[in-house]
């Protein structure tokens, strides 16, 4: 069920109506029912995957909590036991060792089992393709036909994050399986995140009694409408041209590749943030607050800043549950000692950080997709971030010498530089073959079709003149809203303070805009969200 389909709108409105009519203590159960129904629409058998993950992780978390409780009780017993001190000490140490081993077994088994499910459905064909590449023609293995269960990359990370939080005693394990199942399957979240932490959704009132509030409903609807605007007026209109260029690599080279990098970067932003707006808006309508996933990333002045503003929940997940555990692990501690002894204190202490980051960016690439282009994309991000880190003293020296070079003009320069860098790296999203990407990048310098592109080629990509004008105006509105929010705060709050007539005009105007110039109807096919496929 697409977020932009009439059936989804009907489903949300009906669910909201029943939700607010139901007694408060049953509201979360209705959400669970609605979420499972929504999930079953993607294929009833897909429910098996999400039920397996939720059951194993829920059970694993309870086992972790029981392990801690047993430890506490046994240590208390041992402390009181009438034993000679050395015997008591030995018994305590032996018990602690066994308890730690048991805990490790629970964690490893639960995490590996669920990662294996993800690996089998998402990466088996990638593995077979690589084996086929080695085997050569004539001895090819057949690819498997496994459908990727909806949102599996997102809910698997969310479930593992929960288990680790219970292990770290950040949160207690949820005793009610059905509440945990709702956390994993909550329908606005399950398709493309944000990847939430259990504590966040509990605080955000997912399980609470939420009484009808006009502010929640109107703010939620406004947010959904804004999401539709980004998706239907901007992203889906651009996608026609983007898909045309991607679809024919022999015709569309040179100038078209520069055009693609720019347009795809705008489309990706409008598509992904539009989808998240709809997610957050639907939840808001139901009185539930979800964390923000974007903070105007294209205003970033460096790639490092960009990754603090783009897909925030994914970055936090990788930082909390992969980067920190890897960088504090025993092998990395050993590496730190080794590199400090061999390379000196300064460089020696940076090496382990770079190794841990490499692991994280490799995993981020793999998570995005089962093909080499995503892995290279991840490693490119890593390389740029690490080079920037190494050049930091150089930048500091430059600014010390030229203090005047830190004004608004320099900030704008840094923003444009970062945006162009992101545009370049996004090209790795568009094509699966690395050789093809390199060849297309080379064509930017070798194929001189810029004249032909501007004298008509640009109009033959599936976007009419009107489409370009509408998209351009849409981007201007998006830019204006982003600038306001960057400088002053929420646009919705600002509009809410205006007189009734102004509010009505603004939201009716946006509604009519989406209705009249959204990219649907004859000749258009409301596209799946880009991040659904990750």
């Amino acid at each position, binding site marked *: 069920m697409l977020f932009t389909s009439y059936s989804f709108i009907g489903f949300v409105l009906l669910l909201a109506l029943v939700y607010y009519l139901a007694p408060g203590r049953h509201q979360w159960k209705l959400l669970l029912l609605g979420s499972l129904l929504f999930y079953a629409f993607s294929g009833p058998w897909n429910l098996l995957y999400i039920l397996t993950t939720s059951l194993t992780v829920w059970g694993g978390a309870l086992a972790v909590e029981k392990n801690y409780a047993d430890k506490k009780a046994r240590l208390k017993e041992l402390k009181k036991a009438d034993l000679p001190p050395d015997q008591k000490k030995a018994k305590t140490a032996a018990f602690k060792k066994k308890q730690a081993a048991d805990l490790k077994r629970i964690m490893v088994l639960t995490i590996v089992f669920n990662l294996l499910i993800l690996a089998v459905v998402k990466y088996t064909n990638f593995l077979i393709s690589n084996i086929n590449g080695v085997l050569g023609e004539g001895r090819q293995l057949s690819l498997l036909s496994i459908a990727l269960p909806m949102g599996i990359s997102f809910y698997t990370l969310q479930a593992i994050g929960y288990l680790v939080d219970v292990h770290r005693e950040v949160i207690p394990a949820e005793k009610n399986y059905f509440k945990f199942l709702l956390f994993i399957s909550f329908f606005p979240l399950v398709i493309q995140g944000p990847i939430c932490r259990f504590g966040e959704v509990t605080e955000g009132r997912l399980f609470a009694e939420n009484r009808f509030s006009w502010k929640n409903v109107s703010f939620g609807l406004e947010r959904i409408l804004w999401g539709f605007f980004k998706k239907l007026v901007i992203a889906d209109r651009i996608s026609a041209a983007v898909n045309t260029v991607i679809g024919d690599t022999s015709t569309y080279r040179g100038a078209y590749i520069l055009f693609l990098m720019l347009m795809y970067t705008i489309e990706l932003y409008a598509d992904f943030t539009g989808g998240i707006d709809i997610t957050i808006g639907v939840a808001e309508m139901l009185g539930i607050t979800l964390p923000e996933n974007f903070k105007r990333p294209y205003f970033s002045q460096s790639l490092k800043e960009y990754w603090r503003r783009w897909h925030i929940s994914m970055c936090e997940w990788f930082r*909390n549950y992969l980067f920190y555990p890897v960088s504090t692990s025993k092998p990395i*501690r050993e590496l730190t000692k080794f590199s400090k002894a061999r390379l000196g204190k300064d460089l020696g202490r940076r090496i382990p950080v770079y190794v841990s980051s490499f692991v994280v960016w490799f995993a981020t690439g793999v998570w995005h997709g089962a093909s080499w282009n995503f892995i290279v994309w991840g490693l490119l991000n890593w390389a740029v971030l690490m080079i920037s880190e190494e050049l930091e003293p150089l930048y500091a020296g430059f600014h010390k010498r030229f203090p005047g070079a830190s004004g608004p003009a320099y900030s704008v320069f840094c923003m444009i530089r970062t945006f162009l860098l992101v545009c370049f790296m996004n090209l790795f999203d568009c094509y699966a073959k690395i050789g093809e990407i390199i060849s297309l990048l080379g064509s930017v310098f070798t194929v001189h079709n810029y004249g032909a592109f501007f004298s008509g080629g640009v109009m033959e990509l599936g976007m009419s003149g009107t489409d370009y004008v509408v998209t351009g105006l849409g981007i201007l509105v998006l830019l204006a809203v982003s600038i306001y929010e960057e400088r002053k705060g929420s646009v919705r709050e600002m509009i809410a303070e205006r007189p009734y007539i102004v509010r009505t005009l603004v939201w009716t105007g946006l509604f009519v805009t989406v209705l009249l110039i959204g990219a649907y109807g004859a000749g258009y096919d409301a596209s799946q969200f880009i991040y659904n496929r990750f």
Partner: protein
Amino acid sequence: MEELLEILEDLHPEIDFETTENLITDGILDSLDIVTLVSEISENFDIAVSAKYITPANFNSAQAIYEMIETIQAEG
């Protein structure tokens, strides 16, 4: 505390760690700094700082970091 302040000043000489209290909230320490810091703390205080302890609250000020070190030392 003196030893910890030396480690922090070595990492960011421009910051007065005795008075600054929002090291994470204000983005003074990023994730790369934290990992370097954890490695230095582990070595100098002979403790293993696991990922469990890496929370914004534990790294927001020199005092908070010091209290975290004491907690880990007490846990043995």
